[in-house]
């Protein structure tokens, strides 16, 4: 029972990270109707930025916030420079751009920082809290995730800018007609998604260690989480993230073993797509002709 509880709690910690990244995917999906395959590598790149700062002697929390800003700017620049020109291009062209971004970020990071695995510090103490059930980093990561999610919710729900971003993603034509600068709203969305990803990267790096391929598996879980929740539902994606985290951990520990954990994500992706493509909270899309 103790072991089980431990696995569930650890699952919640990684689940929070999947939830953040899944939310980033959903945010981009809502405005582009595409999954940004480079979301994980953008997060990884930001995490390397944090690592460089910390290595250069910057204390953890200032480095953390500088990285969030860096990731935000990175996201905005990527949207303006790379995504903008293919805005009206066919779906496959955009997908190729996303994959190219993934490969470029991955290789450039490897080139700058080498492919050797690095440790990444945690801002939280090493001794476990809540008895033996949970490490302080896991508890801290859940806390950070919840703070980020709450802030995002408040931003989108209660500020005029958040409302304008939602409007721009939903109905760009009508948004322009009320004076919203839709292009900038999309760029802002990319910035926010990248910033969330950066935070997820910094929270997961102490667990999986830092290397250019660290986000590959995590993006897969995040994708599964987004699909389980419904790819167009932010709340669903967050819930899906926690579900996938717990499921992955518990199944990995007791049922299928750690080596087959990633299969959980793949089975979920295929299962959801075949049985309930709209996910638990997504809308069923009907196109009228």
């Amino acid at each position, binding site marked *: 029972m103790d072991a089980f509880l431990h696995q569930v709690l650890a699952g919640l910690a990684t689940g929070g990270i999947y939830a953040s990244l899944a939310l980033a995917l959903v945010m981009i999906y809502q405005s582009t109707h595409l999954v940004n395959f480079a979301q994980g590598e953008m997060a990884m790149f930001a995490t390397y930025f944090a690592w460089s700062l910390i290595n250069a002697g910057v204390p953890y929390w200032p480095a953390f916030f500088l990285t969030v800003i860096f990731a935000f700017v990175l996201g905005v620049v990527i949207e303006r420079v790379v995504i903008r020109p293919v805005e009206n291009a066919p779906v496959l062209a955009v997908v190729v751009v996303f994959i190219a971004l993934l490969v470029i970020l991955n290789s450039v990071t490897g080139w700058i920082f080498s492919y050797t695995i690095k440790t990444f510090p945690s801002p939280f103490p090493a001794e476990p809290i809540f008895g033996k059930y949970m490490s302080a980093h896991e508890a801290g990561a859940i806390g950070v995730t919840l703070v980020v999610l709450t802030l995002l919710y408040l931003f989108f729900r209660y500020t005029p800018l958040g409302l304008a971003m*939602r409007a721009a993603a939903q109905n760009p*034509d009508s948004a322009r007609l009320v004076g919203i600068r839709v292009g900038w709203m999309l760029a802002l969305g990319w910035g926010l998604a990248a910033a969330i990803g950066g935070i997820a990267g910094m929270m997961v790096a102490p667990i999986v260690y830092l290397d250019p391929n660290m986000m590959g598996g995590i993006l897969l879980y995040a994708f599964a989480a987004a699909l389980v929740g419904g790819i167009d539902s932010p709340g669903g994606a967050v819930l899906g993230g926690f579900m996938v985290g717990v499921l992955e951990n518990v199944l990995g520990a007791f049922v299928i073993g750690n080596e087959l954990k990633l299969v959980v994500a793949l089975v979920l992706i295929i299962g959801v797509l075949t049985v309930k493509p709209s996910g638990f909270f997504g809308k069923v899309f009907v196109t009228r002709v």
Partner: protein
Amino acid sequence: MAALLEVADMHAAYGPTRVLHGISFSMQEGTITTLLGANGAGKTTTLRALCAMVKTRGEIRFAGQRIDGRATEDIVRLGVAHVPDGRGTFVNLTTEENLRLGAYVRKDRGGIDADLERVFGYFPRLKERRAQQAGTLSGGEQQMLAVSRALMLRPRLMLLDEPSFGLAPLIVKELFGILRTVNQKEKVSMLVVEQNAAMALDLADHAYLIETGRVVLSGTAADIKRDDNVRRSYLGY
């Protein structure tokens, strides 16, 4: 007196398909002008062209300033509110959020709250539906919402694209009554595109008849109503 809106030799095309072939018209501040014409005459395209929603050539002046070539977002900031074809509802947002978006470019928070009450005064039904998802409103309610959203801008000029489309006759009557009130009380000028020529001519001061992307007839609404050809082709008696 200079015209509020002056359009000279405006051309517009969707890709290779040319829709407007040098349309010219003007309207005075404070008036209601209507553009009449059959399906495909270019009425909707004219309104879209005024807001830079379609590629255009030609000269458009609003309150003396050239606005052709400007971005839609900037034209809105001059006080041009567009009630688009199909209503343009933000279906996943609440009624109130839709209305607040209408005032997006305004900075006076207190004024926005007061205006929210003002449009609820015109359309009490929207107040009841305030927290409801706009996509669940009926067609008539969504049209009221579209008009209200435009009013939230406190516009100088409202462009209305087929406000009567798909509405029950009683609701059309109510809506047109409110448009007239808004025009008279708040001095909002209106450019109305309509297929329902009889309703539009009753509402408007001036009318232009458009055929295949050109103005073929213009005059006061009363004169146009008496024109034999208009009567036969558009009014049906």
